[in-house]
């Protein structure tokens, strides 16, 4: 695959951002009391715009600044491609990132395992992937889908599994899907789960598909699988904490539960940054800092990845994190649990 240019839109955007002093690639890592802490974003989405449902395309387009939103496909191409993501990762000073495959044809669309694997090949030292599978014809395709997932997890750089019950429309406590967790335990590939509501059109808001408490039977039944609870059960519709306490209690109760505070602290979901600060503070007070794994849920729009890292660092500072704790959250916990070496700054 040839490296693509940043494109007309990217160039114009770069010019625009340069006017406001937003250009330049910072040094890798996060500055914390004179030290450079390595940071790794475990939650980024590559994508194929044409595989996204129309309603969701409009939703995503509305997140882009005017006039980039007039032709969101071109703008998205610049940030959703492997090269675009690497540019955002570099801009944020991250050591690397994890790219998610997604199979949610009725809501957020499809980013295939093959697309992710192809993206990882752009920089195998810094990019890793989570594979996924379709569940919309589960009674018919269960075995074939699990085999497809098993195959994808054998590809270089695939370090885990991505599921989103609310986007894929299946219950968290439905044991007919527990084969996915069995595979996770067998292959020692952690499984990431979207928890909480979602603003995307067509998403299920049913408690059994959004509230992390419904995951407990699966967590309890699969002690050998690592469950990473994405978004901390945040309610993205009302923009407030909903499942935070449940997530913390699950992490305290089960050693195979991990926590990921992505997206909930974005400018759109948490304008003041207070919700993210509360989340980081409560997790620290609960003594589960060693379970927190940083992710942003980017790239979303140009600059989001960098901005979310800055907001998370600010929230940790406000919550009194030590340098060692911040380093664990930003990269150490991920490296240890996903078996990945994080490149030092």
């Amino acid at each position, binding site marked *: 695959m040839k490296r693509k240019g940043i494109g007309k839109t990217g160039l114009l955007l770069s010019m*625009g951002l340069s006017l406001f002093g937003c250009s330049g690639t910072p040094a890798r890592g996060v500055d914390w009391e004179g030290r450079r802490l390595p940071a790794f974003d475990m939650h980024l989405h590559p994508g194929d715009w044409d595989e996204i449902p129309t309603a969701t395309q409009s939703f995503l387009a509305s997140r882009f600044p*005017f006039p980039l939103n*007039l032709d969101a496909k071109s703008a998205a191409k610049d940030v959703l491609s492997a090269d675009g993501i690497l540019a955002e990762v570099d801009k944020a000073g991250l050591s690397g990132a994890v790219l998610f495959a997604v199979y949610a044809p009725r809501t957020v669309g499809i980013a295939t395992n093959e697309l992710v694997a192809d993206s990882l090949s752009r920089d195998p030292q810094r990019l890793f992937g989570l594979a996924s599978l379709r569940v919309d014809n589960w009674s018919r395709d269960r075995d074939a889908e699990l085999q497809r997932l098993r195959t994808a997890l054998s590809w270089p750089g695939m370090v885990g599994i991505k599921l989103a019950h609310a986007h894929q429309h299946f219950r968290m406590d439905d044991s007919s899907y527990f084969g996915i967790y069995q595979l996770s335990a067998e292959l020692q590939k952690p499984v990431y789960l979207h928890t909480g509501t979602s603003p995307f059109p067509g998403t299920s808001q049913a408690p059994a598909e959004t509230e992390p408490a419904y995951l407990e039977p699966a967590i309890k039944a699969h002690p050998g699988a690592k469950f990473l609870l994405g978004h901390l059960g945040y309610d993205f519709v009302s923009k407030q904490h909903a499942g935070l306490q449940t997530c913390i209690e699950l992490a305290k109760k089960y050693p195979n539960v991990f926590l990921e505070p992505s997206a909930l602290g974005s400018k759109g979901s948490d304008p003041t940054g207070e919700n993210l600060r509360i989340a980081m503070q409560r997790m620290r007070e609960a003594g589960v800092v060693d379970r927190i794994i940083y992710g942003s849920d980017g790239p979303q729009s140009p600059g989001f990845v960098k901005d979310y890292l800055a907001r998370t660092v600010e929230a940790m500072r406000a919550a009194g994190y030590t340098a060692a704790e911040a380093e664990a959250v930003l990269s150490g916990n991920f490296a240890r649990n996903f078996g990945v070496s994080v490149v030092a700054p």
Partner: protein
Amino acid sequence: MKLQSTLAALVCSALAGGDALAQTVALETQAPSPPAVPAAADSARVVLLPLSRGLLADVVAGGAGAGGWGVTVQGGYAWSALRGYYGVGHRLALLADVETALAVRWRPALGLSAKWVDTARVRISGDVLLGWLFQSGSLPRRGPSGELRIRAAVLLGRVAPYLVLATKHSILPDRTVLQKADSTQITWTARHEWTPWGTLGVGIALTPRLGLDVGVDYGWVDAPQSVAIPGFHLGLYFGGASGSRCGASCGS
């Protein structure tokens, strides 16, 4: 009389900045009180308008007099426009605008421009426009649109820095068709799109009938929940001045 006229022209021209390309000469046989050129004209007066008055002022600050007309072609990022006006009264002009953002968002509109303030150095006018919004691309939108606009310019010889402040409003109707097993339900909803607007620019008269316009634009489309990137434009204008008199304030 001829000597007096020439002197008056020179004096007025000097007061207006010494502009050698002054465009309009108006002869008055009976000077009104107070005289526009007190030292040189007692029984007759020649008023020589600087370039920044007339066409340039009409283009950048609006409010053309009767018979005045002008067309401006602006190109830039993200906004481009074709604008025209025709003066129909002492302080009133008809407006016709077609604006586009990247040829994806279009808004043709018609309106009126009224001159509020008109001195030798300052022109301020207010515009009202009604039109229709068409937007294709990733976020299709269409619906009626209205705009209230204030334009102000400082007239400095052949250049005129100007400021445009506007508030644009569109009503975007949505038709939802719900097909059920036994019936089809159609519902209409509408939402309001607000676009506050600002342009800071400068008009430059090249000749009495031709000039340039350059400026920076900020149109915050769908404020306040959205984000917008500022833009810029370069324009070319041409037309004819209304032949309006400088008025009592000329050269003051």
